């Protein structure tokens, strides 16, 4: 019997409850309390309104580079809503909506994207890690958090966010493998938004799904309509419950779409068609959920205006913040300042004190009329 079929033949489930046409699978519809449904809607709408505002703020030069989440609100809010405040949330860099759900003040996110160190600082009791910029490196951290929870014997669950591109990184493999071997309480939430900057999913992997990758680690993997907040909420709730019950990690692949730019430094018209974007706009997670709530009589009148006012107030407070203290540059390099940083800090303090009116900072841009140096071709258009 040289060739035998081994047991692990697998199937990948795809979960959809409220589809883009607004059709509801009533058998699968979760029994969420009206207040929770309203809270989900409020968070998704706030995520959308803030996102659009932040893109404008970046365009106006009022904040730095920003990675918008437009189109991914259901993936983020449906999943994060399954956590308790004592659970841990580990973001990548596009989880603005999920972070607000977890209690990050809007103002602090604005400060973060404007380059203030305190913007990257969660509140002391908040069980969130800061934004992660390098791709997939936060996945092993999440496993470490879960290992620590197991170590201490508490029942915290860790939810970690990443995109489709991150599944190609070694850290994705290593984290899934560790989590599988150790059976630690992590929910891996992959927001498959179809594009890693300009690289489409089909160039990222030859796998039919990303969810199936979990099976190789002996971990459950589930694909879910990531634009269906009810489906994401159900899938995340099940995964969190399993993790909390000591049944180990889960990989959730949320099928969604980044309707906007990768970051404000990106121009997606270079690599994807208007038709494709338009097709996904018809699957907008907000449209179908709004119609669902309307049908149930749960839409709050004037909510958009309320949220816009909340955002405007946060922007006002953010812009009233004085410029970052230059000396803060040295503050948190180490837990305690070593001699060489004390010396550098003092040197900068002396320079600033000597010339308080015009701080001695050079522009980082090369002036257009700078004298060309040898080896530098002077280009004229």
């Amino acid at each position, binding site marked *: 019997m040289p060739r035998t079929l081994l047991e692990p033949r697998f199937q990948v489930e795809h979960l959809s409850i409220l589809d883009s046409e607004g059709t509801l699978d009533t058998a699968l519809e979760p029994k969420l309390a009206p207040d929770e449904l309203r809270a989900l809607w409020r968070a998704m709408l706030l995520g959308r309104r803030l996102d659009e505002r932040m893109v404008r703020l970046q365009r106006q030069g009022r904040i730095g580079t920003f990675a918008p989440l437009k189109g991914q609100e259901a993936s983020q809010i449906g999943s994060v809503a399954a956590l308790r405040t004592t659970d*841990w949330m580990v973001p990548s860099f596009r989880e603005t909506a999920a972070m607000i759900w977890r209690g990050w003040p809007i103002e602090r996110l604005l400060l973060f994207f404007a380059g203030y*160190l*305190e*913007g*990257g*600082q*969660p509140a*002391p009791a908040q069980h969130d*890690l*800061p934004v*992660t*910029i*390098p791709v997939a*490196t936060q*996945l*092993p*951290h*999440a*496993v*470490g*958090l*879960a*290992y*620590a929870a*197991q*170590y201490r014997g508490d029942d915290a669950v860790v939810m970690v966010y990443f995109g489709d591109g991150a599944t190609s990184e*070694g*850290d994705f*493999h*290593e*984290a899934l*493998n*560790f989590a599988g*071997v150790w059976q630690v309480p992590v929910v891996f939430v992959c927001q498959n938004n179809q594009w890693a900057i300009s690289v489409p999913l089909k160039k990222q992997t030859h796998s039919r799904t990303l969810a199936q990758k979990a099976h190789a680690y002996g971990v459950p993997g589930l694909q879910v309509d990531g634009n269906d907040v009810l489906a994401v909420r159900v899938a995340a709730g099940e995964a969190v419950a399993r993790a909390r019950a000591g049944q180990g990690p889960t990989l959730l692949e949320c099928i969604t779409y980044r309707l906007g730019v990768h970051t404000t430094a990106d121009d997606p018209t270079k690599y994807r068609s208007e038709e494709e974007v338009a097709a996904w706009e018809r699957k907008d997670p907000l449209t179908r959920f709004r119609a669902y709530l309307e049908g149930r009589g749960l839409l709050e009148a004037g909510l958009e205006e309320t949220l816009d006012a909340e955002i405007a107030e946060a922007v006002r407070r953010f812009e009233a913040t004085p410029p970052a203290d230059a000396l803060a540059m040295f*503050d*948190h*390099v*180490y*837990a*305690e300042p*070593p*001699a*060489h940083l004390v010396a550098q800090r003092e040197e900068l303090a002396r320079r600033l004190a000597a010339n308080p009116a015009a701080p001695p900072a050079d522009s980082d841009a090369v002036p257009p009329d700078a004298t060309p140096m040898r080896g530098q071709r002077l280009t004229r258009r």
Partner: protein
Amino acid sequence: MAVLTYREALNLALREEMRRDPRVFVIGEEVGLYEGAYKVTQGLLKEFGAQRVVDTPIAESGFTGVGIGAAMVGLRPVVEMMTFNFALVAVDQIVNTAAKIHYMSGGQYRVPLVIRGPGGPAAQLGAQHSQSMESYFYHVPGLKVVRPTTPMDAKGLLKAAIRDDNPVIFIESETLYNVKGEVPEDPEFLIPLGRAIVRREGTDVTLVAYMGMMYRAMEVAEELAPEGISIELVDPRTLRPMDAETIIGSVRKTHRAVVVEAGAGFAGMGSEIASFITERAFDDLDAPVERVTGANAPMPYARNLERLKTPSKEKIAAAVRRVCGTNGG
């Protein structure tokens, strides 16, 4: 004082810190049942159990990342690299997260993490397992980098590293694990990070070296004494942050300096030490600072070539004579 090997001193440091603080745990490849590729974790699994002495899949980036995550939420992991050369696949975790998250979170998340294991030239470990790995890390703000030369340092510095609230790169050496020396038995004996030590007093020239090179420098000091050359030996012990004051103080006394390093030289620790001596003590110098470094080539595997690649006693002695202007006189 007990006489222990360097390996036993490290083991004792781990054991004492794990007994003292339940947050300390050891994680890495083969650290549990196998007791470490170099047996530094001998007996720890038996005493502390599998939750605190964690055998991992072979994935350095993964278990370094796990260590970072656990450290961010208050545990104090000691990550073992089977050889420090394996840390190359974890460089993103070490440089981009361990070293930076305290800074980027505005001081909210500390990373009290030790990453330890052997590195540097050894006995026929080949090009990929003999690198002076400290060079890759001391450039990075946010990391501390320790290289303990003696068993006493191994214990005192490892304990200080475990109690430190920053990520500490702690690089041992395969060639030193069997070296014996006196080690204080006091479980509160610590050697603070960032302090150099004068290992031998002298008046004519300051010789800066660490790890295997310090033992070689010691032999040179003994051999040149009869020629009337009095060598002061300074061991930085911690490369980052560096105790420049002790080195500068010694140079102001001897007016000459030679820096020895086992690594490939270019932009190495010797360059850094030579440059701060020149910047801060130029007027005290009676001769240019000399560096004695390994050849700027990968480590050969052949025994005879390997011996020729690292700085020899002869090369060190020649440099000392040159700065002293005696040329073998």
